C-alpha cells in the first residue's frame, strides 16, 4: 500500500492495474536457460527427475523435460515419463485451515521412483517458500532423493522460510499486496506473466 504503482493510466483503470512482465518469447528463453543450467549443474539426464507442483508447475516441468531431452539429443518421440512428473502438496500445506478447501491434484512419480536421484522441484512463482516446504515434506513421504533442487519461473521475494531457488527465470521485485499472475498455454491459453495491483482508493494514491 505504500508503493507507487509502476504505471498509471486513469483513463482505463482496469488495464492500469496490471502490467506485463514476461511475454511468450521471454518465457521460452527463460525456460531454455533454466534447462541448460540444470544440465550444467552437473547431473546427467538419467539421474534427473523434474517434479512440477500443481497446477502450473506441472506443464513447466514437462516443457523443461522436453528442452532437456532435446539438449541431450534424445529422439523427438522419446518417452519422457521417467524424466518428469507431478507432486501434489495439498495435504502438506500449513495454511489449509485458513484457505478454502483445495481439490487435490494427482501426484505422478516416475516408475523407477526418486530414491537416489536428483529431484528438481518446479513451480511457477516462488513467494513465501511455504509451498516448497510442503513439497519437501511430500517428497519425504515418497522416497529419499540424492539431492533436491528448486527451479521457478518467477521469484517475487518476500520469503518467510530459509528457502532459495537454484534456478530462476526472472527475479521480480514486488510489493506484498501485488499479485503475480502467471498464465501458460497449457492451462490458460497463452504464455504471460503479469503483475496485478489491488485497486487502491484514490485518496491514498498520493501516499508513496
Amino acid at each position, binding site marked *: 500500500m505504500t508503493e507507487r504503482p509502476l504505471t498509471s493510466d486513469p483513463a482505463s483503470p482496469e488495464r492500469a492495474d496490471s502490467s506485463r512482465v514476461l511475454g511468450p518469447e521471454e518465457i521460452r528463453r527463460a525456460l531454455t536457460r533454466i534447462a541448460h543450467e540444470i544440465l550444467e549443474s552437473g547431473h546427467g539426464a538419467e539421474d534427473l527427475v523434474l517434479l512440477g507442483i500443481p497446477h502450473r508447475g506441472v506443464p513447466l516441468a514437462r516443457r523443461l523435460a522436453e528442452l532437456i531431452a532435446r539438449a541431450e539429443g534424445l529422439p523427438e518421440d522419446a518417452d519422457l515419463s521417467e524424466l518428469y512428473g507431478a507432486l501434489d502438496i495439498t495435504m502438506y500445506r500449513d495454511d489449509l*485451515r485458513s484457505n478454502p478447501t483445495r*481439490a487435490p491434484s494427482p501426484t505422478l512419480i516416475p516408475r523407477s521412483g526418486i530414491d537416489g536421484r536428483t529431484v528438481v522441484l518446479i513451480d511457477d512463482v516462488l513467494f513465501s517458500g511455504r509451498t516448497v516446504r510442503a513439497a519437501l515434506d511430500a517428497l519425504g*513421504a515418497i522416497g529419499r532423493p540424492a539431492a533436491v533442487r528448486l527451479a521457478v519461473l518467477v521469484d517475487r521475494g518476500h520469503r518467510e522460510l530459509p528457502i532459495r531457488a537454484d534456478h530462476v527465470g526472472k527475479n521480480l521485485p514486488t510489493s506484498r499486496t501485488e499479485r503475480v499472475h502467471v498464465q501458460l498455454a497449457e492451462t490458460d491459453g497463452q504464455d504471460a506473466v503479469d503483475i496485478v495491483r489491488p485497486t487502491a482508493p484514490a485518496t491514498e494514491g498520493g501516499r508513496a
Partner: protein
Amino acid sequence: MRHFISIADLTRGEALSVLATAEHMADTQSRAIRKLPTLVGATVVNLFFEDSTRTRISFEAAAKRLSADVINFSAKGSSLSKGESLKDTALTLQAMGADAVVVRSGSSGAAHLLAHAGWIDQPIVNAGDGAHEHPTQAMLDAFTLRRHLRPGDPRAGLDGLHVVIVGDLLHSRVARSNVLLLTLLGARVTLVAPPALVPVGASAWPCTISYDLDEALADSPDAVMMLRVQRERMVGGGFFPTEGEYSRRYGLTIARAARLPEHAIILHPGPMNRGFEIAGAVADSPRSVIVEQVASGVFVRMAVLYHLLATDAREAHREN
C-alpha cells in the same frame, strides 16, 4: 460443506469432489510414509452411542492418517451408558474443544440434531443414524463401484450402471444413503426385499423395488450389494417365517452368483452373516470386493474429514 449428515444434502459435484479427494487419499496410502500432516493439531471426536467397532476404527484410522488427534467416546463404560443426553454430551465436547464430531446413534436424526440444535459449533459427520442414513458408507460403496466399473477416470460418475441392493430395506440406513448417492451419480438402482421389509412410502424413492431376487439378477446388474439382515429381529418381528425361507428367496447363493454377468461385482457393508444372506464361497470369490470396501472406507473418510476440516469452517461460519 459444513457438515456431512445426509447424502440428500449433496450435489453431484460435491459428491464427485469427495470421491476425487478419496482417490487422492488412496494414492497417498501407497507411499512409504502413509501419514499426512494435513490435520495436525485438530481433534476429532468419535461419539458412538451405538457399538460399531468397524466404523469407529475406520474413522479413527482416517483421522490418524491425517495426523489429527482422536478421542473415542463410546457408549460402553462411559456417561453415555448412564443416560447422559445428547445435548449434555455435545456441550461437553464443545467445552473440550473438539474440532469435528463423528457421531453414530441408533436414533434417526441424531446427527442432524447435533449439527443444528445450537449445542455445538463444530462440523458433524454422520457415522450412521438409526434407519436414516449412513452417508460415508454410501460414499465408500460408490468409490469401490467406480474403481471397478469406471476405472481410470477419477471424474466419472456411475452413469449407466445398474446396482441391485438386497435385504432389510426397512431398517437399513445403508440402503437409504445408497439409493440417494448412486442415483445422484447416475446409476440405476433396484431394491430387492420381501414385502414386509420394504418401507411403506418407499415407492417415492428414485429406484425400482422388486420382491424377486432372481428377476432382478436377470436384469444384468453391474453390481449386487447384499445388506446385513439381523436374524433375531426378523424372525422375532414376524417379518418372515424362518431363516431358511428368507435364505432361499433372498440369499446370494453360489448358483445365483454364477448367473451374474462376468464383470459384475458383489458388495456387502459387513458384518456378514455367512450362509444366510450371502454364501461363504460367494463372499470369498474373486468378484467379491467386500474386503476392498473396508480399505475404501478409510480413504473416503479421510476425504470427508479433509473437506470439513481443511478449511476453517468455523471462521467461515462466523463471517456468515
